[in-house]
């Protein structure tokens, strides 16, 4: 696949960093500088955004659950090479089905430099539950409020500024199908990664005694599985009595899951997205 340069429409003003070029890199992601994950509820347009950014042809469909595997592609923006990981949709991080587990494991243990949570502007409240769960585990989050065109048709108006303020992370309006808002999204992602935008994610912390219990468990988990990201999340799950997390810990699968997130799924993604086996 040849890479194509796409001149993005200039939004806002000519001085903003969005006045740059996006280069779709398809599956040529041998060396990349940053990893960006696409998370979100099912059928919010993650794969559509993935295709727009990478130039790949990951199959999309208008039904929740179309993407069941992790697809990877690349794009270059302002000279920085990004690996983009398209994840199956998930309603929560406590999920049970195989496809949702793929998403959850990557968000938790894949250590992306930034996670874009794609939300449906027409069903924002429900989508925010996942956003807030993701905010509990990482600071590097950009909320993409997708399907803005559909929301407008339905007579809905979404104030992304109010959303950004409340969530403590940037929220960007988007219509992945038409390409509207993509430039702003990419520059926001870049700024969050570089630390030009500092985020203060909204967190529901719980009672002080709960916090104390979490603080006690975290070092134990880190000692058990050195180098594990999100020991805090695991501690919360353990305090919650999550049987699946207990099982994972007992069987020693944890380090395996963490290791698996680092191996590239490129071969598989090429099959899924280029040959189109879905």
């Amino acid at each position, binding site marked *: 696949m040849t890479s194509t340069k796409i001149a993005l429409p200039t939004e806002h003003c000519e001085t903003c960093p969005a006045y740059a070029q996006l280069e779709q890199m398809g599956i040529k992601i041998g060396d990349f500088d940053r990893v960006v994950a696409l998370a979100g509820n*099912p*059928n919010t347009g993650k794969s559509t955004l993935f295709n727009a950014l990478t130039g790949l*042809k990951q199959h*999309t*469909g*208008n*039904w*929740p*659950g179309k993407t*069941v595997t992790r697809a990877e592609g690349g794009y270059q923006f302002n000279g920085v090479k990004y690996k983009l990981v398209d994840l199956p949709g998930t309603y929560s991080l406590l*999920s*049970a*089905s*195989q*496809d*949702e587990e793929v998403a959850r494991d990557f968000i938790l243990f894949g250590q992306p430099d930034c996670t874009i949570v794609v939300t449906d*502007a027409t069903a*924002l*409240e429900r989508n*925010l*539950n996942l*956003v*807030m*769960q993701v905010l509990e585990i990482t600071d590097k989050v950009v909320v993409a409020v997708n399907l803005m065109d*559909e929301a407008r048709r*339905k*007579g*809905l*108006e*979404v*104030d*992304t500024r*109010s*959303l950004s303020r*409340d*969530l403590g992370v940037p929220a960007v309006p988007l219509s992945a199908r038409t390409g509207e808002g993509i430039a702003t999204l990419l520059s926001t992602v870049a700024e969050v990664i570089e630390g030009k935008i500092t985020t203060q994610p909204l967190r*529901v912390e*719980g*009672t002080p*005694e*709960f916090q104390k*219990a979490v603080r*006690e*468990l975290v070092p*134990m*988990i880190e000692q*058990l599985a050195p180098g594990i990201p999100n020991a805090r999340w695991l*501690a919360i799950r*353990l*305090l*919650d*009595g999550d049987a699946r997390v*207990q099982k994972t810990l*007992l069987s*020693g699968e944890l380090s395996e899951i963490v290791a698996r997130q680092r191996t590239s799924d490129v071969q598989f993604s090429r099959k899924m997205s*280029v*040959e*189109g*086996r*879905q």
Partner: protein
Amino acid sequence: METTIRPEDVLNRAETLRNNLSSGFRDEVVKSLYSEAERIARRAVKTAAQKKYDLDQKIDRLVTSPLTGLPIMLGLLAIVIWLTVSGANVVSEMIAALLFGFGDWARSIFVSLNVPWWITGFLWDGVYRGLAWVVSVMLPPMAIFFPAFTILEDLGYLPRVAFNLDWLFKKAGAHGKQALTMTMGFGCNAAGVIATRVIDSPRERLIAILTNNFVPCNGRFPTLIMLATVFVAAGFGGFTSSIIAAATVVGVVLIGIAFTFLMSWLLSRTLLKGEASAFTLELPPYRRPNIARILYTSLIDRTIFVLWRAMQTAAPAGALIWVLANVPVGTSNLAAVIASWLNPFGLLLGLDGVILLSYIIAIPANEIVVPTMMMMYTGAGMMIDAPSSAEAIRSLLVGQHGWTLLTAINLMLFALLHNPCATTILTIYKETKSLKWATISVVITLGTAILVTFLTATIARLVGWV
């Protein structure tokens, strides 16, 4: 010095800490999470004056109503299949005439250049004819069916199908989302098997995997379409003929869906005992399909991909058939000997020895059974012109090889029910990580195919139909 910590220690500590916390501490957190989400959303979203009516809701009331939902679904299925049947017929004959014409011309050049007979035969009667049959039989139906199917998918119709069929799956002890994976199977059974990941209960996921093959995939549709057109709809005029052929294919698809339910029901009462679990499924808004993208993905990605895979099997299969037909055994040849040896069993199933041999040769990609069979019947290397029109095919099979309507119907049933193709079996193995379930998937489907064709053949003979 650091003491090593065991997982049990962490779990025990967590247990103690949990017991010390005031009960319902986590509920509080979850509750505040939800109320926070509600508060934030209310602040950010402004709703303009409600529109008087919502078109989506109106359509949904019709499409998912208990009264009109199923008929609409059947109607859409019939329309897609009719479009495929009537469009593919004309194009198939044109492509066949073109490809076989070219083959004969190339062959005659080889002959006039005095190329050894076995090179000419192997290349043009073997490999080339195998490819020509596969392209002419499979390409046109796929090129029509895939885009039509994808348009429905992109519109957002699939979740509505799941909604309509939920009660049936529930009765069968299966998961309602199996409707989605079953529908994906129409495109490709291997993709359907991968799609079962959306089903969270392992038991119900296995049921969906094991029964996915009962819906004919795109590779098998052409077989059904050809048999329905050439045999069932034979003797009717143009338009009527295409309606009857389409109705036959719809009938076969419905039989396949009936077997999906029957087998799911049997499995959930024997090997995979259990009750259907509850689930939620969003009905997404209808969206206007992006026609350019659909044409691209369905033609370039899917059609060419599936066709290419079929061709990779068809070329060696064609070569193998030519060799078998040209290895002399006494006064006969190897192909004829094997076919006549398989014949009694074939007849028992209302088929014949040639069909069974073709099926065995085509095991790597069993959607090429019909092309393989046609090569056998035309007797590779025996200088018979390849029949390209429906008329010619019928007179060859009925006139020279004793086919009846029962043969055609049983071959359709056999193609519908028999074991998954090699790719799908491999996918089942990868998804279940179990040799046992991969084997069971073959045994169940092949067993059903043999049993059903045996029964129809026996009944047809008992009532004196053939």
